[in-house]
């Protein structure tokens, strides 16, 4: 298909960068609803090995038996109709290694989102997923020579079972929660990464998740293993067009940092406001290792996500730095979990939430530090910013610390951007949107200094857009 053909088709463009879609045209479609047959269809299409077929079917059973979460939950979850969702849609299973080989509509999608440009500028590798499968996946050649593996989850389990299998589903067991079970049954796409001993990636690897289809569920599955003394930064971004109907995104991300390894995982979540984003993310840190989650949630209708770190080895470090922005009609239910399982482990949680209009944000934390451990430290800070009186924010920190040699610090604050502050800024010539944007940027400024540059620039841009849009 040529470029002009594409333009002739009805492409729905909106002012928001991610809000456009191309006509649906899929070779593989598992249909609507979730049954054993759906899962079997996915396995057939993917040509899964037997152990994966069994893994999926068992997970389906768990999913069907498990009730919806009740303790950490939002009433809005009840509005997900699992029978109306499509669980697998793809144009084929093999990602292209060159953008030239990517189907035109998909390629244009990612070009509009700026992915090939970012790849040229500062990335060591990119995987671009379109609905259920990656359309493009490529890593710089020198990294391949060093033994770095960066492929999709299906390719990972097929080609590298000896590394994949021992860790898959170990950090986050199928039955962890209803949505991890759903993902374990229907997973498709996502990344498998292995960084060999001592290899330190200087540039980040990036995955971009794009939902194009309506009534669709995306269930990517990512497993990153950083071998001893290695280092990696992984970034993920996502968008979807805005539909009237609900879209489901339910990922599982498992990180394994072996002795003295460092993993930094960065998310810019910018789903459209009809997406239920229910994601389970957890890392395991061995002796002297470090797992850092930088998690920013700007989009979606409801996000429930609490990245965690299991501090398994002595001296392991875990960190969650998060920013959540809840605008009208959104609920950002986010937080962090830190499980201290060894001596001298430290964890740090900094959470900043912004609620605007009728937007709602919730922080839920869990810090677990058993009695028999020595010299463990946790620092938790959660700050909420309210812009106008209707917004709602809740903080539920659950810190269970025992033992005399362990220390925990917890601080929380709620502040408001007052009408007088906005007036003051507008008196200097800023529009209302610019004034709110500046106040929000001021609120997250300190925290953003800890983020990589390219990433803070993108985040600032998203916040500005969001604030401009929130002025009635």
């Amino acid at each position, binding site marked *: 298909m040529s470029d002009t053909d594409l333009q002739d088709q009805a492409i729905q463009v909106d002012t928001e960068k991610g809000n456009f879609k191309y006509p649906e045209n899929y070779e593989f479609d598992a249909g609507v609803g979730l049954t054993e047959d759906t899962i079997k269809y996915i396995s057939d299409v993917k040509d899964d090995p037997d152990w994966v077929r069994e893994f999926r079917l068992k997970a389906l059973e768990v999913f069907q038996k498990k009730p919806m979460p009740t303790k950490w939950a939002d009433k809005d979850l009840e509005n997900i109709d699992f029978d109306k969702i499509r669980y697998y849609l793809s144009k084929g299973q093999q990602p292209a290694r060159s953008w030239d080989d990517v189907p035109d509509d998909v390629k244009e999608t990612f070009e509009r989102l700026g992915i090939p440009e970012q790849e040229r500028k500062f990335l060591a590798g990119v995987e671009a997923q379109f609905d259920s499968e990656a359309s493009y996946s490529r890593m710089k050649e020198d990294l391949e020579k060093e033994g770095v593996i960066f492929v999709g989850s299906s390719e990972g389990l097929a080609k590298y079972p000896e590394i994949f299998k021992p860790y898959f589903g170990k950090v986050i067991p199928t039955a962890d929660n209803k949505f991890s079970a759903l993902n374990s049954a229907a997973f498709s796409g996502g990344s498998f990464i292995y960084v060999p001993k001592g290899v330190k990636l200087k540039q980040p690897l990036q995955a971009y998740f794009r939902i194009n289809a309506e009534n669709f569920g995306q269930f990517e599955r990512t497993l990153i293993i950083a071998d001893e003394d290695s280092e990696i930064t992984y970034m993920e971004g996502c968008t979807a067009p805005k539909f009237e109907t609900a879209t489901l995104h339910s990922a599982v991300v498992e990180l394994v940092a072996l002795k003295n390894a460092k993993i930094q995982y960065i998310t810019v979540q910018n789903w459209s406001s009809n997406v239920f984003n229910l994601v389970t993310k957890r890392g395991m840190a061995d002796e002297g290792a470090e797992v850092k989650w930088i998690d920013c949630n700007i989009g979606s209708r409801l996000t429930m996500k609490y990245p965690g770190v299991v501090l398994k080895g002595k001296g392991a470090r875990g960190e969650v730095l998060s920013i959540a922005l809840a605008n009208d009609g959104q609920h950002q239910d986010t937080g962090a979990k830190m499980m201290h399982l060894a001596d001298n482990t430290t964890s740090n949680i900094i959470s900043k939430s912004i609620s605007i209009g009728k937007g709602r944000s919730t922080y839920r934390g869990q810090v677990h530090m058993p009695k028999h451990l020595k010299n463990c430290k946790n620092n938790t800070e959660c700050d909420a910013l309210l812009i106008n009186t209707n917004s709602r924010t809740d903080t539920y920190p659950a810190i269970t610390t025992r033992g005399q040699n362990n220390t925990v610090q917890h601080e929380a604050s709620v502040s408001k951007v007052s009408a007088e502050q906005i007036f003051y800024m507008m008196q200097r*010539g800023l529009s209302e949107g610019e004034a709110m944007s500046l106040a929000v940027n001021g609120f997250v400024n300190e925290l953003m200094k800890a983020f990589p540059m390219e990433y803070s620039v993108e985040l600032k841009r998203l916040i500005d857009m969001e604030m401009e849009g929130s002025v009635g």
Partner: protein
Amino acid sequence: MNHSLEVKNLHVSIDGQAILKGFNLTVPKGEVHALMGPNGTGKSTLAKVMAGHEDYTVESGEVLLDGVNILGQEPDEISHAGLFLAFQYPMEIPGVSIANFIRAAKQARLPEGEEINAIEYYKDLYAKMDALKMDRKFTARSLNEGFSGGEKKRCEILQMAMLDPKYCVMDETDSGLDIDALRIVSEGVNHMRSEDRAFLVITHYQRLLDYIVPDVVHVMFDGRIVHSGDKELAKELEIKGYDWVKEAFATASA
């Protein structure tokens, strides 16, 4: 074109309570007018209404900048039209540095697509900070957050100098300033005095007017100007207080 700030028969209330009751004033460009008067007579209210604060209800009247009525415009539009208000109580904006804030305010005045020249900007900013004897380290501090009273006032004047307004309304800029700061800030203001700029200086004390010598002094009472005179009037008030104005006013309105 009419080169002045003009307030015509302005009536303003808040929550049904009248505060400005037929306020009239004309400050032509090139002049400095002082506005004095007892606490609670409506000086700050006047300043905020002129700047477009939405809490106040304008019952009637006009505020004209160069002949154009600005009442009903958004605060940012009024700012772009050339009115600057140095606040009696400047707001704190956590996390936003002075440098970034002023830069954003200047950027907001540029046409779409035009970017501020960062090098020129910092040169200008530092020169004006030096003139106001502000430590350059201040540029990195959050706007007004944790500033002393005097530091806040100095920062207001820095913003005023940077934004180059045509009409400057200064609401009790002198309160909170120590003796040296009063002189320095006044010098900054005097430096800005020019043929195409006008000042309305709200103050309670003669000492500011020793430095910023006004062309006209107005006395406000109960929501309107009841007496105007030259700079000697401020000195008279300093000695006699407001009672005689109140008495004269009471007799006049009886």
